[in-house]
């Protein structure tokens, strides 16, 4: 039976000892390490960067704190990038985890993975595998959707959930395949082929949930891209999250950002379709009604038109109207005409009165006569003979005693 030889250490004591041991090493205090970024995460609240660096055999955890990133980082890190970091290596006491504390980071050329991805993409593109003309149309109303993914993954749960919510009657046919690790690409290919051989599915969803770039790698394999392109049934790809783009996405007939989104694209909402259908019939009925209503109104207007309804009156009525209007205009004019004539008459009478010689005599004038004529001027008067001065009511006979002519 084993006996402890001395007082055992607590975990904290062990981690503390190790950390101090590492801190005493001059190399680990300041070093440069080159590797490929994987599992990169930017922690939003703290603004710290967490990731690992790896090469063919090993990996090491890294953290780059916000204050270091401010001065030591001038690009956006991403999985697959090859970088060189300046750092110190130490133990994170709490988790007993060996990690690199990065003070600055620079790009060291693209990683192998990225180069392989770009090379395959260019090759298949040149081959015409991604041609838009090759793309099959996604059916708008599938009865059964085929899914090539893992039966235990999150992707199939999301797809079933979304598809069933949108159309409770949708059939789902799952072709199980590993979606990461060794042999996954071959399994994905077989799953796609199995669904095509079965032939029941109207559309195939191929994909998986989010993960590291290594986990998604099977979807960047050439055989998967070719199997998707060769599928008789249209394929929607859905690998990882919004930002993950794989070769499979280029080969698919449609790329969905996530498995849930793929289910939304593949399965139309039954309620929405029924509503659309009913809406069309309603539009149709109302178009028909309004068409009929227009015609009926036109008919009613015709029938009710006066010429058809009471032809005789229709002819007479307008003329009677016309007459009445004339009358109405004439009546007010009459008194004015009479008034004007009367006024004119008064004026004329006054003039006449003024012209009557008798009325002039009334105002104090008299007429001078000699013999038979009227003496209107001095020259008319013969001083040797008497003159008669005629008033309105009688005359005086007088002798001329003196004549005085005014020199004009």
């Amino acid at each position, binding site marked *: 039976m084993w006996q402890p030889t001395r007082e055992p250490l607590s975990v904290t004591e062990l981690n503390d000892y190790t950390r101090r041991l590492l801190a005493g090493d001059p190399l680990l205090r300041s070093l440069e390490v080159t590797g490929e970024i994987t599992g990169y995460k930017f922690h939003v609240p703290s603004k710290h960067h967490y990731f690992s660096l790896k090469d063919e055999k090993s990996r090491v955890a890294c953290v780059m704190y916000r204050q270091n990133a401010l001065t030591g980082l001038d690009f956006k890190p991403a999985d697959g990038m090859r970088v060189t970091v300046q750092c110190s290596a130490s133990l994170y006491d709490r988790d007993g985890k060996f990690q690199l504390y990065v003070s600055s980071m620079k790009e060291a050329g693209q990683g192998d993975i990225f180069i392989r991805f770009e090379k395959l993409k260019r090759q298949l593109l040149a081959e015409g595998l991604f041609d838009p003309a090759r793309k099959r149309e996604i*059916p*708008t*109303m599938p*009865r*059964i959707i*085929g899914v090539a993914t893992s*039966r*235990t993954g999150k992707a*199939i*749960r999301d797809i*079933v*959930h979304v598809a069933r919510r949108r*159309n*409770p*009657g*949708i*059939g*789902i*046919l*799952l*072709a*199980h395949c590993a979606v990461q690790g060794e042999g996954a690409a071959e399994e994905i290919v077989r799953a796609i082929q*199995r*669904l095509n051989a*079965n032939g029941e599915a109207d559309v195939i969803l191929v994909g998986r949930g989010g993960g590291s770039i290594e986990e998604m790698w099977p979807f960047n394999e050439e055989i998967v891209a070719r199997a998707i392109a060769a599928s008789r049934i249209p394929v929607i790809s859905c690998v990882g999250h919004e930002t993950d783009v794989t070769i499979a996405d280029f080969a698919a007939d449609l790329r969905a950002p996530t498995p849930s989104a793929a289910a939304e694209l593949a399965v139309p909402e*039954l309620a929405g*379709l*029924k509503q659309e*259908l009913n809406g*069309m*019939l309603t*539009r*149709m*009925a109302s*178009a*028909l009604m*309004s*068409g*009929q209503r*227009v*015609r009926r109104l036109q008919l009613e207007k015709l029938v009710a038109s006066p010429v058809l309804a009471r032809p005789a009156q229709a002819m007479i009525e307008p003329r009677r109207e016309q007459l009445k209007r004339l009358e109405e205009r004439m009546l007010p004019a009459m008194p004015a005409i009479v008034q004007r004539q009367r006024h004119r008459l008064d004026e004329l009478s006054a003039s006449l009165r003024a012209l009557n010689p008798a009325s002039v005599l009334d105002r104090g004038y008299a007429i001078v006569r000699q013999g038979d004529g009227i003496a209107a001027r001095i020259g008319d008067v013969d001083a040797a003979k008497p003159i008669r001065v005629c008033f309105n009511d009688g005359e005086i006979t007088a002798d001329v005693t003196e004549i005085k002519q005014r020199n004009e």
Partner: protein
Amino acid sequence: MAEKITFEQGMQELETLVRTLESGQLPLEDSFKAYERAVVLKDSLNALLDDSDKRIRVLTETGDEPLDPIEEE
């Protein structure tokens, strides 16, 4: 009576019928004919919508089997 058409074809024909009728260019007689056709189409399309499989199955190399309820949630 439902007839054999794809959903896409049916929707397209229905859409065309609705547009024509809405344009008001059809004579009365043809309007009624168009409406009757639309009703038939609607029934066919509804039948397509209601024609469901409802099953969730796992397709294996040898055949298919239901998906475990646990996996389905």
